[in-house]
Each structure stands twice: as C-alpha cells, then as structure tokens.
C-alpha cells in the first residue's frame, strides 16, 4: 500500500538529513506504528507519505515514495487526498472552520459528495469519536483533546484508504488515548490502513501490527510489533521509553526468570507474572 525506497530528505536551509536512506513497506490493512525520540524524523516520514514533503515543505528529496501505486513526487497532494488522509501534529492550524460541524463538512463538501451522504458520514465520524455533542460548538471553545478528535473526525469522514496520523494522542489523557486507538483499531479492522507516529510506545505495542523505529532520520528496525518490542536494547538506543511491562519482562529476562516475548498488553503481562509465580 505504501512503499518507501531509499528515502532521504534535507529541509531547505537545513544541513542535517531529516531522513536518511529510509526504506519501508506498509502492507494493505496494516496498523503501522512509527516510534522514535524527538527529531528522529517521524513527522518528516509521515509528511513524505502524504506528499507534503516535498510539495509544500521544500528541500532536497532522494528516493521514492509510492502510495497506492501513485508516486508522491509526481502527484499533487490533493490528488492523494482521497486515498491518504493526513492529520498532523499542529492541530490548531488544521482546524480551518468556525464550528465542529462545518469542519467535518469541509472536506466532504470539497469532494462534492451527495448531501445525504455528507450528513451520514459526518454523523458516523462524530459518533465514532464521541464528539456528537460538540457538533454546534465553536472550534475556539474546544479543549486540546476535543480539537484533536475533531481534526481526526474530519479526516475519518472522508473514508480514505490510508490514514496518516502524526502523534494523534499528544493532547489526550490516557482514557481518551485508549478510546482514540480503539476507534482506530475499529477502522483498521474495517480495512483502513493506518500509519501513525506516536511517542507512547505502550499504546503502539498494543494496537499496531508493525513498527518502525527511527533514530536521527535512520530506520533502525521495521518489523512486526512483537519482534521490535522484543529488542529492548534497540528501543533504549533509539531513546524510546519502554512501557512498564516491557521494562519488567526485560529485567526478568536479565534475572533468568523469563524467556518469552515482551508482553504487548496487560493480559499478556499478567500471564507472564502468573507463569513465573507458578
């Protein structure tokens, strides 16, 4: 679905490579997590997939990015818009209308969808992210988390084949993060390919199927999530804070008490502890 080959990018005026020879293949229907410390290239990678880099953010671009068979370098980002929906980290600047309802209608109107379909899709997206009660509210009166959900609902309503999210839980509390990722998992189960950059590795290892670890613009690993999470040294080297269950399993392994894979969720962690106790 997304094929990145030997991608390097240097922003105009920059000296360092924001991305350095990154290759990645995101299969159709995958829930792909991108993790790494700050300035590791996560946002640039996602912008390249959405076509923002290099069309809107100029720089020196090497390699190829193909999204659903379309080379992002030759296609304009708006041509990709219905295939790949992008929600960036700076939520404030992505909300361009006055109210939540107008924001969600905006993209649907642009693509000239039939009016009854606009309403159905907008209502479903708001329902999915539990913001139906905010429908008539002014954007300026919303909290950070509500704005994040609104931006996401506006994109979900367009039903893109691929959803690209840059740090979607940045403004959310743990419960809202859980709800958001459950909604994304639901969309993924419906066939939508999701690629998300996330600071919270614990969330990614629960919901993602695959993961890429970036460090200083280079991809250290791209593999199924279990394989990546088992390499705790690599995660530490990339500056990623391990989830507590991964930290625990790592220490138990070091003590020779456990030899299985890193538990990806709390049930697996409970199973690991029970196994050791028995």
């Amino acid at each position, binding site marked *: 679905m997304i094929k990145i080959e030997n991608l390097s990018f240097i922003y105009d005026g920059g000296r360092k490579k924001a991305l350095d020879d990154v290759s990645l293949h995101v299969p159709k229907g995958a829930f792909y997590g991108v993790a790494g410390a700050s300035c590791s290239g996560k946002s640039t990678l996602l912008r390249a997939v*959405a076509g*923002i880099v290099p069309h*809107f953010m100029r720089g020196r671009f090497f390699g190829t990015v193909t999204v659903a068979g379309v080379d992002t370098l030759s296609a304009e*980002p*708006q041509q990709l*818009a*219905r295939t790949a*929906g*992008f929600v*960036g980290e*700076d939520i*404030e*600047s*992505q909300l*361009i*209308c*006055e*109210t939540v309802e*107008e924001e969600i*209608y*905006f*993209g*649907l*109107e*642009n*693509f*000239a969808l039939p*009016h009854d379909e*606009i*309403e159905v899709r907008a209502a479903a997206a708001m329902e999915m992210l539990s913001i139906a009660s905010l429908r008539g509210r002014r954007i*300026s009166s919303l909290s950070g988390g509500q704005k994040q959900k609104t931006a996401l609902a*506006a*994109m979900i309503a*367009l039903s893109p084949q691929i959803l690209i999210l840059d740090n979607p839980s940045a403004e959310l509390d743990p419960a809202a993060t859980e709800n958001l990722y459950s909604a994304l998992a639901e969309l993924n189960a419906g066939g939508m390919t999701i690629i998300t950059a996330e600071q919270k590795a614990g969330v990614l290892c629960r919901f993602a199927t695959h993961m890429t670890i970036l460090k200083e613009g280079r991809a250290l690993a791209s593999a199924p999530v279990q394989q990546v999470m088992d390499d705790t040294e690599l995660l530490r080297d990339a500056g990623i804070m391990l989830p507590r269950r991964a930290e625990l399993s790592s220490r138990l392994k070091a003590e020779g008490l456990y030899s299985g894979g890193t538990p990806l969720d709390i049930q697996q962690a409970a199973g690991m502890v029970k196994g050791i106790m028995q």
Partner: protein
Amino acid sequence: MKGLLECDGGKGVIYAVNPSLKVIIAFAAGMSAFAVKSISGALFIALFTIAAAYFSGLGKKAVSTALLIAKISILFFVIQLLCVRRGNPILNLGFFSITDAGLYYAVMMALKLIAASLPLVLVLSATKRSDLANSLVYNLHIPFKYAFALTTTLNFIPGLASEMAQVMEAQKARGVDFEIKNPIKKAALIVPLCLPLMLSCVRRTENSAIAAQLRGFELRGRGSAYKKYPLGMKDAIAVLACAVVLSAAFIL
C-alpha cells in the same frame, strides 16, 4: 458577546438576509455614508444601522463598535477642527483658530466614519465565515479559493487578537504590568510582542492552507456546499428598505 468580527449565531433580521447580499448592502451603506453631504444624512444611516442591529440582538455590539470607531475618529476630528480656516471663528488658540465651518466638517467626518464602518462590522459579526464563502461562490460565482481567502483573512484579525491576549496573559504571569496608564510605556511593552506574533499567525495560516489543500480545497465547485443560499422575499425586502433609507439619507 463575541469578539468584534466573530459571529455568535443569532436569529435576528441581519442574520436572516443572504450573506452576499448583506455584504453588498453594507458596502452600499458605507459608500453612501461617505457620499452624503449633510450631518443629518450620515447620522440617519448610523442610527438606522444601530436600530437594525438592535432588532437583531446586536444592539450592545453596535453601540460598543460605534464608540470604538468614535475613539479612532478623535484624531481626524481634531485635525479637521484645527485645519479648516473657512467660516466664522468661534475660539482663538494662538496659531490655530476653531471656526464654525471647521466644527461642522469635524463632526461630519467623525459621523461619516462611524456610519461608513458600522454596517460592514455588524454584517460581518452576523455572518458565519463559511456561509459568506459559500454564498459568494453560489450567488456571485466567485471561485471558492478567492472566497475562502477572503474569509480566512477576516478570521486572521480575531485570531491575532486572541493570540495577543494569550501572550499578554503569559507575560502578566511573568510579572509584566500591562495595566500601566502611560500609553507610551504600554506601547513599549506591546510593540516587541507584535512581530513574533504576526510571524506565528502567518505560519499558522500557511499550515492551514496546507491542511485545506489536503482536504481537496481546490476541487470545490459552485454546487459543492451542503447549504444552498437562494435569494428570497426577505432579501428583496432588505434591498428595498436599504434603498429607501439611503435615498432618505441623501435627501436629509
């Protein structure tokens, strides 16, 4: 009450008129206010605008806006008052002398400024930006990108004001005193904040433009909007009322 150009979604007379039409009416009223030759004509337009605002639930906003414009027009008032030499002197201030003609033109200038600005400010305060953009596309066949650029520009002003308020709050928390009475000292505190604020607003506008393009903004056509904006009887009545009022203003 919302900010100066922010629409609070009311249901009065001004809200009910077609968005494009009311902007045209407001422009016509503004041009007429400059064109009338008497104080009574300009006053009539200003009072009619305030009355229309009152019946739309915007009475307080109209009065506060009129007062704000009056404050701005003080400078023009003083210049006019001191520079007009024609007429009979009322007061002698050494090099300057205030004449009856100077006083007349100064009052007229201030009133014209109020009468010319008030209709447009109130109309924009009673029109959602999306309705305005969609109506400009639907009724006046203006390409969406231009209509959207216009409404985005209008949003820029309240956005800048809101960011300024936030920055000032943050500065107050660090002990900066913006409450000082001396206007020069106050300006010295505020001016250094303006440039970074402008830059951040421009950056945000650029990011918003990217976000809009990623949501198919350039594909939008005349029939794309969810809402339609047909002209009806209430719009015809508004045009008629405006024509009558503006004609009366020229006669007075």
